[in-house]
Protein backbone atom coordinates (compact mmCIF):
# COMPACT_ATOMS: atom_id res chain seq x y z
CA UNK A 1 0.00 0.00 0.00
CA UNK A 2 2.84 2.32 0.90
CA UNK A 3 4.63 1.50 -2.34
CA UNK A 4 1.42 2.20 -4.27
CA UNK A 5 1.01 5.59 -2.61
CA UNK A 6 4.64 6.37 -3.26
CA UNK A 7 4.18 5.45 -6.92
CA UNK A 8 1.11 7.65 -7.21
CA UNK A 9 2.96 10.67 -5.84
CA UNK A 10 5.93 10.02 -8.09
CA UNK A 11 3.69 9.77 -11.15
CA UNK A 12 1.83 12.95 -10.23
CA UNK A 13 5.07 14.77 -9.66
CA UNK A 14 6.47 13.67 -13.02
CA UNK A 15 3.25 14.72 -14.74
CA UNK A 16 3.43 18.15 -13.10
CA UNK A 17 7.05 18.55 -14.16
CA UNK A 18 6.16 17.61 -17.75
CA UNK A 19 3.26 20.06 -17.90
CA UNK A 20 5.30 22.90 -16.37
CA UNK A 21 8.21 22.33 -18.73
CA UNK A 22 5.87 22.33 -21.72
CA UNK A 23 4.16 25.53 -20.55
CA UNK A 24 7.58 27.10 -20.04
CA UNK A 25 8.70 26.15 -23.53
CA UNK A 26 5.42 27.44 -24.97
CA UNK A 27 5.83 30.78 -23.13
CA UNK A 28 9.41 31.00 -24.31
CA UNK A 29 8.38 30.39 -27.92
CA UNK A 30 5.63 33.02 -27.90
CA UNK A 31 7.97 35.50 -26.20
CA UNK A 32 10.83 34.99 -28.67
CA UNK A 33 10.52 33.43 -32.15
CA UNK A 34 6.75 33.01 -32.56
CA UNK A 35 5.32 36.40 -31.65
CA UNK A 36 1.88 35.49 -33.03
CA UNK A 37 1.59 32.44 -30.81
CA UNK A 38 -0.72 33.33 -27.92
CA UNK A 39 0.89 32.85 -24.53
CA UNK A 40 -0.55 30.29 -22.10
CA UNK A 41 -2.12 33.12 -20.12
CA UNK A 42 -3.71 34.67 -23.22
CA UNK A 43 -5.01 31.27 -24.27
CA UNK A 44 -6.61 30.79 -20.87
CA UNK A 45 -8.24 34.22 -21.15
CA UNK A 46 -10.00 33.48 -24.46
CA UNK A 47 -10.83 29.91 -23.54
CA UNK A 48 -12.23 30.74 -20.12
CA UNK A 49 -15.88 31.26 -21.12
CA UNK A 50 -15.93 27.90 -22.88
CA UNK A 51 -14.36 26.03 -19.98
CA UNK A 52 -16.13 27.66 -17.05
CA UNK A 53 -19.56 27.17 -18.64
CA UNK A 54 -18.91 23.95 -20.51
CA UNK A 55 -22.56 23.33 -21.41
CA UNK A 56 -23.58 26.92 -22.27
CA UNK A 57 -25.33 27.62 -25.55
CA UNK A 58 -24.91 31.26 -26.49
CA UNK A 59 -25.25 30.85 -30.25
CA UNK A 60 -24.78 28.39 -33.13
CA UNK A 61 -20.98 28.30 -32.80
CA UNK A 62 -20.58 30.02 -29.45
CA UNK A 63 -21.16 27.09 -27.11
CA UNK A 64 -19.52 25.55 -24.06
CA UNK A 65 -16.65 23.19 -24.91
CA UNK A 66 -18.26 20.02 -23.59
CA UNK A 67 -21.40 20.74 -25.58
CA UNK A 68 -19.25 21.05 -28.72
CA UNK A 69 -17.38 17.87 -27.83
CA UNK A 70 -20.75 16.20 -27.32
CA UNK A 71 -21.87 17.06 -30.89
CA UNK A 72 -18.62 15.67 -32.27
CA UNK A 73 -18.77 12.52 -30.16
CA UNK A 74 -22.35 11.83 -31.21
CA UNK A 75 -21.36 11.83 -34.88
CA UNK A 76 -18.22 9.81 -34.16
CA UNK A 77 -20.31 7.22 -32.32
CA UNK A 78 -22.59 6.78 -35.33
CA UNK A 79 -19.78 6.57 -37.86
CA UNK A 80 -17.76 4.30 -35.61
CA UNK A 81 -20.72 1.97 -35.11
CA UNK A 82 -21.13 1.70 -38.89
CA UNK A 83 -17.40 1.01 -39.24
CA UNK A 84 -17.53 -1.86 -36.74
CA UNK A 85 -20.75 -3.34 -38.08
CA UNK A 86 -19.42 -3.33 -41.64
CA UNK A 87 -15.75 -3.90 -40.89
CA UNK A 88 -15.93 -6.89 -38.55
CA UNK A 89 -17.71 -9.25 -40.97
CA UNK A 90 -15.43 -8.15 -43.82
CA UNK A 91 -12.45 -8.93 -41.57
CA UNK A 92 -13.89 -12.35 -40.81
CA UNK A 93 -14.41 -13.13 -44.48
CA UNK A 94 -10.87 -11.99 -45.31
CA UNK A 95 -9.50 -14.18 -42.54
CA UNK A 96 -11.65 -17.23 -43.26
CA UNK A 97 -11.62 -17.46 -47.02
CA UNK A 98 -8.41 -17.54 -49.04
CA UNK A 99 -10.40 -16.84 -52.18
CA UNK A 100 -12.14 -13.80 -50.69
CA UNK A 101 -8.78 -12.52 -49.45
CA UNK A 102 -7.20 -12.95 -52.88
CA UNK A 103 -9.97 -10.98 -54.53
CA UNK A 104 -10.47 -8.20 -52.00
CA UNK A 105 -7.23 -7.83 -50.10
CA UNK A 106 -5.51 -5.80 -52.86
CA UNK A 107 -8.52 -3.49 -52.99
CA UNK A 108 -8.45 -3.00 -49.23
CA UNK A 109 -4.74 -2.23 -49.41
CA UNK A 110 -5.33 0.45 -52.05
CA UNK A 111 -8.29 2.10 -50.32
CA UNK A 112 -6.76 2.02 -46.85
CA UNK A 113 -4.13 4.77 -47.25
CA UNK A 114 -6.62 7.26 -48.74
CA UNK A 115 -6.90 10.41 -46.60
CA UNK A 116 -10.23 11.31 -44.98
CA UNK A 117 -10.03 14.65 -46.80
CA UNK A 118 -10.24 12.76 -50.09
CA UNK A 119 -13.24 10.68 -49.06
CA UNK A 120 -15.29 13.60 -47.75
CA UNK A 121 -16.22 15.22 -51.10
CA UNK A 122 -17.22 11.81 -52.44
CA UNK A 123 -19.36 11.24 -49.38
CA UNK A 124 -21.13 14.56 -49.83
CA UNK A 125 -21.72 13.83 -53.52
CA UNK A 126 -23.13 10.40 -52.67
CA UNK A 127 -25.65 11.94 -50.27
CA UNK A 128 -26.57 14.98 -52.36
CA UNK A 129 -30.08 13.59 -52.56
CA UNK A 130 -30.55 13.89 -48.81
CA UNK A 131 -30.63 17.71 -49.00
CA UNK A 132 -29.77 19.42 -45.74
CA UNK A 133 -28.58 16.11 -44.31
CA UNK A 134 -25.98 15.74 -47.08
CA UNK A 135 -23.15 17.29 -45.06
CA UNK A 136 -23.83 15.14 -42.04
CA UNK A 137 -24.23 11.96 -44.06
CA UNK A 138 -21.09 12.71 -46.03
CA UNK A 139 -19.18 13.13 -42.77
CA UNK A 140 -20.64 9.88 -41.47
CA UNK A 141 -19.62 8.07 -44.63
CA UNK A 142 -16.08 9.43 -44.31
CA UNK A 143 -15.73 8.44 -40.66
CA UNK A 144 -17.10 4.98 -41.31
CA UNK A 145 -14.92 4.22 -44.29
CA UNK A 146 -11.70 5.61 -42.77
CA UNK A 147 -12.21 4.04 -39.35
CA UNK A 148 -13.11 0.66 -40.80
CA UNK A 149 -9.67 -0.49 -41.96
CA UNK A 150 -7.94 -1.26 -38.66
CA UNK A 151 -10.97 -3.32 -37.62
CA UNK A 152 -11.02 -5.15 -40.95
CA UNK A 153 -7.30 -5.93 -40.94
CA UNK A 154 -6.94 -6.85 -37.27
CA UNK A 155 -10.00 -9.10 -37.38
CA UNK A 156 -8.60 -10.84 -40.45
CA UNK A 157 -5.24 -11.37 -38.74
CA UNK A 158 -7.02 -12.62 -35.61
CA UNK A 159 -9.10 -15.14 -37.54
CA UNK A 160 -6.00 -16.47 -39.30
CA UNK A 161 -4.26 -16.75 -35.92
CA UNK A 162 -6.92 -18.96 -34.29
CA UNK A 163 -4.95 -21.95 -32.99
CA UNK A 164 -5.69 -25.15 -34.89
CA UNK A 165 -6.23 -26.83 -31.51
CA UNK A 166 -9.33 -24.75 -30.79
CA UNK A 167 -10.72 -25.57 -34.22
CA UNK A 168 -9.96 -29.27 -33.62
CA UNK A 169 -11.96 -29.12 -30.39
CA UNK A 170 -14.89 -27.85 -32.42
CA UNK A 171 -14.39 -30.51 -35.08
CA UNK A 172 -14.24 -33.34 -32.54
CA UNK A 173 -17.45 -32.04 -30.94
CA UNK A 174 -19.02 -31.74 -34.41
CA UNK A 175 -20.22 -28.22 -33.67
CA UNK A 176 -22.50 -26.68 -36.27
CA UNK A 177 -21.09 -23.87 -38.42
CA UNK A 178 -22.96 -21.25 -36.42
CA UNK A 179 -21.77 -22.65 -33.09
CA UNK A 180 -18.23 -22.99 -34.41
CA UNK A 181 -18.35 -19.30 -35.34
CA UNK A 182 -19.86 -17.94 -32.14
CA UNK A 183 -18.49 -20.40 -29.57
CA UNK A 184 -14.95 -20.73 -30.88
CA UNK A 185 -13.96 -18.38 -33.69
CA UNK A 186 -15.39 -15.11 -32.40
CA UNK A 187 -14.11 -15.52 -28.81
CA UNK A 188 -10.71 -16.62 -30.10
CA UNK A 189 -10.53 -13.53 -32.32
CA UNK A 190 -11.85 -11.03 -29.75
CA UNK A 191 -8.45 -9.81 -28.51
CA UNK A 192 -7.44 -8.95 -32.08
CA UNK A 193 -10.82 -7.44 -32.82
CA UNK A 194 -10.52 -5.14 -29.83
CA UNK A 195 -7.09 -3.98 -30.92
CA UNK A 196 -8.72 -3.10 -34.24
CA UNK A 197 -11.67 -1.42 -32.48
CA UNK A 198 -9.30 0.74 -30.45
CA UNK A 199 -7.29 1.85 -33.47
CA UNK A 200 -10.52 2.47 -35.39
CA UNK A 201 -11.85 4.73 -32.66
CA UNK A 202 -8.64 6.74 -32.78
CA UNK A 203 -9.05 7.24 -36.50
CA UNK A 204 -12.74 8.10 -36.20
CA UNK A 205 -11.79 10.87 -33.78
CA UNK A 206 -9.11 12.13 -36.18
CA UNK A 207 -11.57 12.19 -39.06
CA UNK A 208 -14.36 14.02 -37.25
CA UNK A 209 -12.23 17.13 -36.76
CA UNK A 210 -11.33 17.28 -40.44
CA UNK A 211 -14.92 16.56 -41.46
CA UNK A 212 -16.33 19.29 -39.25
CA UNK A 213 -13.79 21.83 -40.46
CA UNK A 214 -14.75 21.20 -44.08
CA UNK A 215 -18.50 20.82 -43.67
CA UNK A 216 -18.98 23.48 -40.99
CA UNK A 217 -21.12 21.10 -38.96
CA UNK A 218 -21.15 22.31 -35.35
CA UNK A 219 -18.55 20.62 -33.19
CA UNK A 220 -14.97 20.95 -31.96
CA UNK A 221 -13.54 20.90 -35.48
CA UNK A 222 -15.67 23.69 -36.83
CA UNK A 223 -15.17 25.65 -33.60
CA UNK A 224 -11.44 25.52 -34.23
CA UNK A 225 -11.85 26.72 -37.81
CA UNK A 226 -14.26 29.50 -36.87
CA UNK A 227 -12.00 30.79 -34.15
CA UNK A 228 -9.20 30.90 -36.70
CA UNK A 229 -11.44 33.00 -38.94
CA UNK A 230 -12.42 35.15 -35.96
CA UNK A 231 -8.71 35.65 -35.17
CA UNK A 232 -9.15 34.16 -31.68
CA UNK A 233 -5.91 32.28 -32.04
CA UNK A 234 -5.85 31.22 -28.40
CA UNK A 235 -8.87 29.07 -29.05
CA UNK A 236 -7.05 27.16 -31.78
CA UNK A 237 -4.62 25.97 -29.14
CA UNK A 238 -7.46 25.38 -26.73
CA UNK A 239 -9.25 23.23 -29.35
CA UNK A 240 -6.11 21.26 -30.10
CA UNK A 241 -5.66 20.50 -26.42
CA UNK A 242 -9.31 19.52 -26.08
CA UNK A 243 -9.18 17.22 -29.10
CA UNK A 244 -6.02 15.60 -27.80
CA UNK A 245 -7.44 15.16 -24.34
CA UNK A 246 -10.69 13.59 -25.55
CA UNK A 247 -8.78 11.30 -27.91
CA UNK A 248 -6.60 10.22 -25.01
CA UNK A 249 -9.61 9.43 -22.84
CA UNK A 250 -11.25 7.42 -25.63
CA UNK A 251 -8.07 5.43 -26.12
CA UNK A 252 -7.78 4.72 -22.39
CA UNK A 253 -11.39 3.53 -22.25
CA UNK A 254 -10.87 1.24 -25.21
CA UNK A 255 -7.68 -0.24 -23.82
CA UNK A 256 -9.49 -1.04 -20.59
CA UNK A 257 -12.12 -2.85 -22.66
CA UNK A 258 -9.37 -4.50 -24.69
CA UNK A 259 -7.52 -5.86 -21.68
CA UNK A 260 -10.77 -7.27 -20.30
CA UNK A 261 -11.04 -9.48 -23.37
CA UNK A 262 -7.43 -10.58 -23.38
CA UNK A 263 -7.29 -14.33 -23.02
CA UNK A 264 -4.47 -16.77 -22.32
Amino acid at each position, binding site marked *: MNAKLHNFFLNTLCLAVGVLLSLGFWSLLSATVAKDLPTPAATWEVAKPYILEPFAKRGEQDQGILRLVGYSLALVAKGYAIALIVGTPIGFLLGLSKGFARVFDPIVQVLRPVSPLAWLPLGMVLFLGTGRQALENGALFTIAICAMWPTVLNTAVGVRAIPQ*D*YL*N*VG*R*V*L*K*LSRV*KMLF*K*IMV*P*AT*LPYMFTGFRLSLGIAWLVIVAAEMLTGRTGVGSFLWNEYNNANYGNIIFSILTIGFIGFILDRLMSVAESRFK*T*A
Partner: protein
Amino acid sequence: MSFLELRHVTKSFGGAPVRHDVNLSLIEGEFVAIVGYSGQGKTTLMSMIAGLVKPDSGEILLQGKPVEGPGPDRGLVFQNYSLLPWLTVEENISLAVEAVFPGQSAAERAAHVAKYIAMVKLSHAADRLPRQLSGGMRQRVSVARTLAMDPRILLLDEPLSALDALTRANLQDEISEIWQRDKKTVVLITNSVDEALLLADRVVPLTLGPGATLGAPVTIDLPRPRDRTALNHEPEFKRLRAQITETLLGYGAKARQTVSRKLILH
Protein backbone atom coordinates in the same frame (compact mmCIF):
# COMPACT_ATOMS: atom_id res chain seq x y z
CA MET B 1 -14.59 -58.75 -33.81
CA SER B 2 -12.01 -56.15 -32.91
CA PHE B 3 -13.23 -52.89 -31.48
CA LEU B 4 -10.75 -50.66 -33.26
CA GLU B 5 -8.81 -51.83 -36.25
CA LEU B 6 -6.12 -50.16 -38.37
CA ARG B 7 -5.40 -51.90 -41.67
CA HIS B 8 -2.32 -51.02 -43.74
CA VAL B 9 -2.55 -47.38 -42.73
CA THR B 10 0.07 -45.18 -44.39
CA LYS B 11 0.59 -41.44 -44.16
CA SER B 12 3.30 -39.27 -45.63
CA PHE B 13 4.01 -35.57 -45.71
CA GLY B 14 5.76 -34.76 -48.96
CA GLY B 15 8.60 -37.30 -49.08
CA ALA B 16 9.07 -40.45 -47.05
CA PRO B 17 6.04 -41.89 -45.26
CA VAL B 18 5.76 -40.80 -41.65
CA ARG B 19 3.75 -43.90 -40.83
CA HIS B 20 4.05 -46.91 -43.06
CA ASP B 21 1.71 -49.86 -43.28
CA VAL B 22 0.40 -49.67 -39.73
CA ASN B 23 -1.73 -52.55 -38.54
CA LEU B 24 -3.29 -52.59 -35.12
CA SER B 25 -6.29 -54.24 -33.55
CA LEU B 26 -7.89 -53.59 -30.18
CA ILE B 27 -10.56 -55.56 -28.39
CA GLU B 28 -13.25 -53.80 -26.35
CA GLY B 29 -12.10 -52.62 -22.93
CA GLU B 30 -8.44 -53.02 -23.77
CA PHE B 31 -5.77 -50.48 -22.75
CA VAL B 32 -3.10 -50.31 -25.43
CA ALA B 33 -0.02 -48.08 -25.16
CA ILE B 34 2.01 -47.09 -28.21
CA VAL B 35 5.55 -46.13 -27.20
CA GLY B 36 8.05 -44.30 -29.33
CA TYR B 37 10.37 -41.34 -29.66
CA SER B 38 9.12 -37.91 -30.49
CA GLY B 39 9.08 -36.97 -34.15
CA GLN B 40 8.01 -40.45 -35.18
CA GLY B 41 4.54 -39.51 -36.24
CA LYS B 42 2.81 -40.70 -33.09
CA THR B 43 0.54 -37.69 -33.06
CA THR B 44 -0.16 -38.19 -36.77
CA LEU B 45 -1.26 -41.74 -36.01
CA MET B 46 -3.57 -40.48 -33.25
CA SER B 47 -4.98 -37.71 -35.45
CA MET B 48 -5.85 -40.34 -38.04
CA ILE B 49 -7.73 -42.46 -35.50
CA ALA B 50 -9.47 -39.29 -34.30
CA GLY B 51 -10.37 -38.50 -37.90
CA LEU B 52 -8.68 -35.10 -37.92
CA VAL B 53 -6.21 -36.31 -40.57
CA LYS B 54 -6.98 -38.69 -43.41
CA PRO B 55 -4.57 -41.59 -44.09
CA ASP B 56 -3.10 -41.75 -47.62
CA SER B 57 -4.03 -45.40 -47.86
CA GLY B 58 -5.40 -48.14 -45.68
CA GLU B 59 -8.42 -47.91 -43.44
CA ILE B 60 -9.40 -47.38 -39.83
CA LEU B 61 -12.44 -49.18 -38.51
CA LEU B 62 -14.26 -48.47 -35.27
CA GLN B 63 -16.66 -51.28 -34.38
CA GLY B 64 -16.50 -52.38 -38.00
CA LYS B 65 -17.40 -48.95 -39.44
CA PRO B 66 -14.77 -46.89 -41.26
CA VAL B 67 -13.69 -43.65 -39.61
CA GLU B 68 -14.74 -40.82 -41.95
CA GLY B 69 -14.03 -37.73 -39.88
CA PRO B 70 -13.73 -36.39 -36.36
CA GLY B 71 -16.51 -37.16 -33.91
CA PRO B 72 -17.26 -37.28 -30.20
CA ASP B 73 -17.40 -41.09 -30.16
CA ARG B 74 -13.59 -41.02 -30.11
CA GLY B 75 -12.60 -38.96 -27.08
CA LEU B 76 -9.29 -37.33 -27.88
CA VAL B 77 -7.25 -35.89 -25.02
CA PHE B 78 -4.91 -33.45 -26.68
CA GLN B 79 -1.22 -33.24 -25.88
CA ASN B 80 -1.49 -29.52 -25.18
CA TYR B 81 -4.84 -29.66 -23.31
CA SER B 82 -6.64 -27.48 -25.88
CA LEU B 83 -8.93 -25.86 -23.36
CA LEU B 84 -10.70 -22.76 -24.61
CA PRO B 85 -9.05 -19.98 -22.60
CA TRP B 86 -12.13 -17.74 -22.45
CA LEU B 87 -14.28 -20.43 -20.78
CA THR B 88 -14.08 -21.59 -17.17
CA VAL B 89 -13.43 -25.22 -16.30
CA GLU B 90 -17.15 -25.80 -16.00
CA GLU B 91 -17.97 -24.01 -19.27
CA ASN B 92 -15.28 -25.88 -21.18
CA ILE B 93 -16.76 -29.20 -20.15
CA SER B 94 -20.31 -27.95 -20.54
CA LEU B 95 -19.64 -26.98 -24.17
CA ALA B 96 -18.63 -30.56 -24.92
CA VAL B 97 -21.51 -32.08 -22.97
CA GLU B 98 -24.01 -29.80 -24.70
CA ALA B 99 -22.68 -30.83 -28.10
CA VAL B 100 -22.81 -34.54 -27.33
CA PHE B 101 -26.04 -34.69 -25.30
CA PRO B 102 -28.25 -31.96 -26.76
CA GLY B 103 -31.37 -33.46 -25.19
CA GLN B 104 -30.36 -32.80 -21.58
CA SER B 105 -32.11 -30.18 -19.48
CA ALA B 106 -29.96 -27.45 -17.96
CA ALA B 107 -30.10 -29.12 -14.54
CA GLU B 108 -29.16 -32.53 -15.94
CA ARG B 109 -26.28 -31.00 -17.81
CA ALA B 110 -25.00 -29.16 -14.73
CA ALA B 111 -25.10 -32.38 -12.72
CA HIS B 112 -23.36 -34.30 -15.51
CA VAL B 113 -20.60 -31.68 -15.74
CA ALA B 114 -20.18 -31.52 -11.95
CA LYS B 115 -19.82 -35.29 -11.76
CA TYR B 116 -16.85 -35.35 -14.12
CA ILE B 117 -15.22 -32.31 -12.52
CA ALA B 118 -15.44 -34.17 -9.22
CA MET B 119 -13.99 -37.29 -10.85
CA VAL B 120 -10.75 -35.43 -11.59
CA LYS B 121 -10.87 -33.74 -8.15
CA LEU B 122 -11.30 -30.19 -9.42
CA SER B 123 -14.65 -29.23 -7.88
CA HIS B 124 -12.98 -26.38 -6.01
CA ALA B 125 -11.68 -24.92 -9.29
CA ALA B 126 -14.84 -25.25 -11.42
CA ASP B 127 -15.20 -21.48 -11.86
CA ARG B 128 -11.59 -20.80 -12.75
CA LEU B 129 -10.23 -20.00 -16.17
CA PRO B 130 -7.58 -22.29 -17.66
CA ARG B 131 -4.86 -19.66 -17.20
CA GLN B 132 -5.51 -19.77 -13.44
CA LEU B 133 -4.70 -23.49 -13.34
CA SER B 134 -1.42 -25.39 -13.25
CA GLY B 135 -0.44 -27.67 -16.14
CA GLY B 136 -1.53 -30.77 -14.30
CA MET B 137 -4.91 -29.26 -13.45
CA ARG B 138 -5.45 -28.22 -17.06
CA GLN B 139 -4.76 -31.71 -18.26
CA ARG B 140 -7.22 -33.07 -15.70
CA VAL B 141 -9.86 -30.70 -17.07
CA SER B 142 -9.07 -31.95 -20.53
CA VAL B 143 -9.45 -35.57 -19.36
CA ALA B 144 -12.73 -34.72 -17.61
CA ARG B 145 -14.03 -33.01 -20.74
CA THR B 146 -13.27 -36.09 -22.79
CA LEU B 147 -14.73 -38.54 -20.26
CA ALA B 148 -17.88 -36.41 -19.94
CA MET B 149 -18.52 -36.96 -23.65
CA ASP B 150 -18.80 -40.68 -22.84
CA PRO B 151 -16.79 -41.70 -25.90
CA ARG B 152 -16.64 -45.29 -27.10
CA ILE B 153 -12.86 -45.10 -27.11
CA LEU B 154 -10.37 -42.84 -25.34
CA LEU B 155 -7.43 -41.52 -27.32
CA LEU B 156 -4.71 -40.17 -25.06
CA ASP B 157 -2.06 -38.39 -27.11
CA GLU B 158 0.97 -37.98 -24.84
CA PRO B 159 -1.36 -36.41 -22.29
CA LEU B 160 1.26 -36.23 -19.56
CA SER B 161 4.45 -35.45 -21.43
CA ALA B 162 4.39 -31.73 -20.67
CA LEU B 163 4.12 -32.27 -16.91
CA ASP B 164 6.74 -32.58 -14.19
CA ALA B 165 7.54 -36.05 -12.88
CA LEU B 166 5.47 -35.84 -9.68
CA THR B 167 2.34 -34.45 -11.33
CA ARG B 168 2.81 -37.02 -14.03
CA ALA B 169 2.87 -39.87 -11.51
CA ASN B 170 -0.26 -38.53 -9.80
CA LEU B 171 -2.16 -38.29 -13.05
CA GLN B 172 -1.02 -41.75 -14.13
CA ASP B 173 -2.63 -43.10 -10.98
CA GLU B 174 -5.81 -41.13 -11.65
CA ILE B 175 -6.02 -42.38 -15.23
CA SER B 176 -5.42 -45.93 -14.03
CA GLU B 177 -8.15 -45.58 -11.40
CA ILE B 178 -10.67 -44.13 -13.85
CA TRP B 179 -9.92 -46.80 -16.42
CA GLN B 180 -10.39 -49.62 -13.91
CA ARG B 181 -13.77 -48.17 -12.98
CA ASP B 182 -15.05 -47.49 -16.52
CA LYS B 183 -13.24 -50.21 -18.52
CA LYS B 184 -13.20 -48.04 -21.62
CA THR B 185 -11.10 -48.98 -24.59
CA VAL B 186 -8.01 -46.77 -24.49
CA VAL B 187 -5.18 -45.97 -26.87
CA LEU B 188 -2.37 -44.18 -25.05
CA ILE B 189 0.53 -42.67 -26.92
CA THR B 190 3.56 -42.02 -24.76
CA ASN B 191 7.31 -41.62 -24.84
CA SER B 192 7.76 -43.35 -21.47
CA VAL B 193 8.19 -47.11 -21.29
CA ASP B 194 7.46 -47.06 -17.56
CA GLU B 195 4.22 -45.19 -18.09
CA ALA B 196 3.15 -47.74 -20.70
CA LEU B 197 4.01 -50.66 -18.42
CA LEU B 198 2.17 -49.11 -15.51
CA LEU B 199 -1.06 -48.50 -17.38
CA ALA B 200 -1.46 -50.79 -20.38
CA ASP B 201 -2.62 -54.31 -21.13
CA ARG B 202 -0.53 -54.33 -24.26
CA VAL B 203 2.43 -52.19 -25.35
CA VAL B 204 3.21 -51.57 -28.99
CA PRO B 205 6.69 -50.19 -29.63
CA LEU B 206 7.27 -48.05 -32.71
CA THR B 207 10.19 -49.10 -34.87
CA LEU B 208 12.63 -46.46 -36.03
CA GLY B 209 11.80 -44.30 -39.02
CA PRO B 210 11.82 -43.38 -41.81
CA GLY B 211 9.04 -45.65 -42.89
CA ALA B 212 8.40 -46.40 -39.23
CA THR B 213 5.73 -48.91 -38.43
CA LEU B 214 4.49 -50.71 -35.32
CA GLY B 215 6.70 -53.36 -33.74
CA ALA B 216 5.41 -56.63 -32.32
CA PRO B 217 2.98 -55.95 -29.46
CA VAL B 218 4.04 -57.03 -25.97
CA THR B 219 1.35 -58.29 -23.62
CA ILE B 220 1.67 -56.93 -20.09
CA ASP B 221 0.11 -59.34 -17.64
CA LEU B 222 1.30 -57.65 -14.49
CA PRO B 223 -1.47 -57.86 -11.87
CA ARG B 224 -3.60 -54.78 -11.20
CA PRO B 225 -3.72 -52.45 -9.40
CA ARG B 226 -0.09 -51.82 -10.19
CA ASP B 227 1.99 -50.05 -7.60
CA ARG B 228 4.77 -48.00 -9.12
CA THR B 229 7.26 -48.53 -6.28
CA ALA B 230 6.66 -52.28 -6.00
CA LEU B 231 6.83 -52.66 -9.79
CA ASN B 232 10.43 -51.54 -9.87
CA HIS B 233 11.50 -54.67 -8.01
CA GLU B 234 9.31 -57.09 -9.97
CA PRO B 235 11.46 -59.35 -12.23
CA GLU B 236 8.68 -59.56 -14.83
CA PHE B 237 8.51 -55.75 -15.02
CA LYS B 238 12.28 -55.54 -15.52
CA ARG B 239 12.17 -58.20 -18.23
CA LEU B 240 9.34 -56.44 -20.11
CA ARG B 241 11.03 -53.08 -19.84
CA ALA B 242 14.28 -54.48 -21.24
CA GLN B 243 12.41 -56.18 -24.07
CA ILE B 244 10.51 -53.05 -25.09
CA THR B 245 13.51 -50.78 -24.74
CA GLU B 246 15.51 -53.10 -27.00
CA THR B 247 12.84 -53.02 -29.66
CA LEU B 248 12.70 -49.24 -29.44
CA LEU B 249 16.44 -48.87 -29.73
CA GLY B 250 16.45 -51.18 -32.72
CA TYR B 251 19.04 -53.77 -31.59
CA GLY B 252 19.27 -56.53 -34.12
CA ALA B 253 18.11 -54.09 -36.78
CA LYS B 254 20.52 -52.52 -39.23
CA ALA B 255 24.00 -51.99 -37.83
CA ARG B 256 24.01 -48.41 -39.09
CA GLN B 257 21.01 -47.63 -36.99
CA THR B 258 22.54 -49.21 -33.91
CA VAL B 259 25.61 -47.05 -34.29
CA SER B 260 23.69 -43.81 -34.76
CA ARG B 261 21.45 -44.68 -31.84
CA LYS B 262 24.45 -45.28 -29.60
CA LEU B 263 25.86 -41.93 -30.57
CA ILE B 264 22.67 -40.25 -29.54
CA LEU B 265 22.52 -42.13 -26.27
CA HIS B 266 26.01 -41.13 -25.18
